């Protein structure tokens, strides 16, 4: 356990706690979601440091690929000012 690993771990955990704190107290929903995507990346690094590459793989696929897409889609859906019922929105394709 060298000083460098302590610096790395300290920086990583401090960044995780700070990111979680700011995303939970953030007023702008979009900002919170972007911070959550960044938090997922740091989580993957934390799994790597804990020597859990299986979980790091799952976390990488889920936080990079899935949860960002899902959350941005939902936030985009609920921010349009007037919702229209789905049966009126017919497509042309």
């Amino acid at each position, binding site marked *: 356990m060298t000083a460098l690993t302590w610096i790395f771990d300290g920086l990583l955990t401090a960044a995780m706690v700070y990111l979680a704190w700011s995303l939970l107290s953030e*007023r*702008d929903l979009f900002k919170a979601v972007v911070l959550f995507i960044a938090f997922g990346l740091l989580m993957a690094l934390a799994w790597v440091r804990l020597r859990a590459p299986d979980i790091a793989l799952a976390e990488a696929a*889920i936080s990079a690929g*899935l949860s960002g897409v*899902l959350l941005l889609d939902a936030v985009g859906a609920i921010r349009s000012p007037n919702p*229209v019922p*789905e049966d009126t*929105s017919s*497509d042309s*394709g």
Partner: protein
Amino acid sequence: MTSNKSPTTEPASTRRPKSSSGAAGVREFAAEIGFARVAFNLLVVLLLGLLFWTVLDLPPQSAGLHAKVKAHMHVSGVASPITAVLLNFRGYDTLLEIVVLLLASIGCLILRDAPQSHPALAPGRPGKWVLDGMIHVLIPVMLLTAGYLLWAGDHAPGGAFQAGAVLAAAGFLLVLGNRMRFWRTPEWLLRLSLSFGMIVFVLVASVVTILTKNLLQYPENYAGILILLIEISVAGSIGCVLITLFAGHPPVTRTPAADQLWHSNDEPKE
């Protein structure tokens, strides 16, 4: 924990002006719950202290189940201890997990109002060409990576979950690019693909239970091939479940202006 800002401060980045009555209402509400909030903050700090103490008070060493897993690796049929735990030693966990995922997708499908109605198309105008290129390049690589992770799960980190997540990501990309007409999927195909993993898992479980008289105890010689069979079908089902959760419910909230804009010059190719 206690330095949480009250909700009365206006956000700096707000675009739409809020009605004054709404802000006053928020202020009143905050005053009303002020005491409860302080008490709750104290409670959370207490919980934090308790958990800190618990973690620091843990014995520095504990035997764990590592030795047991290591001793039984030779009968598991795979070389990666985590895959062995997931699909052999604690196979029923994974079986129930598949059931839970299936329930989530069923919940999503129940919320469809009219399954026959046409899908609301996702907005297509911005970034059309770039997205087309991305789909052409990335989808084959993603499928290859999913296959690789499935194969690697036998002896290294990887496996059904990771492969399923990558498959789902490929599906998300297709949905975002209007290449996957989710609502055109025949109902029977949708149901089959969602439940395929569970069906295979339950079939294997029943057969080996009858043969060995033990729930999910694979015969030693066939364990590897059975686990591979389960992993492939479970990965596919996890991918389908996640795609259903993303695309099973059409984007319903769109402004008329946005509608007009999106349909003006971007008809998706069939």
